[in-house]
């Protein structure tokens, strides 16, 4: 991976590593939502939800626009990009397995006791 890819993966990982943010993404991918509508869905403050939205925006996963007093958020992930993030998640599962195989093999050569 290039440095840019790595940075993008970092931002994606961070953004998607949170259950609430993944849930917000599912909603805004389905259609545009106002931040206040989103906030009403969760048992947390408007400011907390707004913060989650900001993290997703920074990762390039959603865009916001103003309409009067409302802030509207929309998923900005083309189908391909969203598949990309799925494959990134899957890759993490694989990396975990590979690291565990490596640990297992390494333990072969360690002296007993």
């Amino acid at each position, binding site marked *: *991976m290039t440095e840019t890819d790595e940075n993008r993966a970092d931002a994606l*990982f*961070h953004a*998607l*590593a949170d259950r609430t943010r993944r849930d917000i993404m599912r909603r805004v991918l389905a259609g545009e939502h106002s931040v206040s509508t989103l906030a009403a869905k969760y048992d947390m403050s408007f400011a907390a939800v707004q913060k989650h939205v900001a993290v997703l925006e920074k990762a390039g996963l959603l865009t916001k626009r103003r309409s009067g007093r409302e802030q509207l958020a929309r998923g900005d992930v083309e*189908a*391909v990009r*969203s*598949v*990309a993030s*799925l*494959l*990134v*998640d*899957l*890759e*993490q*599962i*694989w*990396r*975990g*397995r*590979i*690291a*565990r*195989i*490596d640990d*297992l*093999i*390494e333990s*072969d050569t360690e002296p007993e006791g």
Partner: protein
Amino acid sequence: MPVTDVRHDLDNLTLAITAEFAAPVERIWQVYADTRQLEKVWGPPSYPATVVDHDLRPGGRVNYVMTGPEGDKHAGYWQVTTVDEPRGFSFDDGFADLDFTPNPDLPVSENEYTFTERDGGTRATYVSTFASAEGLQQVLDMGIVEGATSAVNQIDELVAAR
């Protein structure tokens, strides 16, 4: 790092990962041929796997259960398609009911594992292909992704601690 290459094929919904292990091909084969070793590597620490049936032959089945942090159980199976001991094998990986009846409503991935000798060690190639993006999404939405996510969180904490 043992992982040497990662390829994401968005069009074919394929993930290909290459890793290099400091052990002979036969040793890597053993990880999959030995139930206890397979259990150690298959599930993430938060979702340990128990292998219930293990028949690593063409047409054979490997059945496993992963247990989540809240005692939630996820059964899965491998339907083994080809075996070339010790150079690799291929199988379909799917979800099942707790009696290991395959659940046709959940996605199945095609997997091909290849182990080749390289400088006294092993180059392992893992290729997973999904039929649809929805299928891949479903797999990740099931508990298993939480293991990956907790790993990601650990990385985040590590980075934040610097």
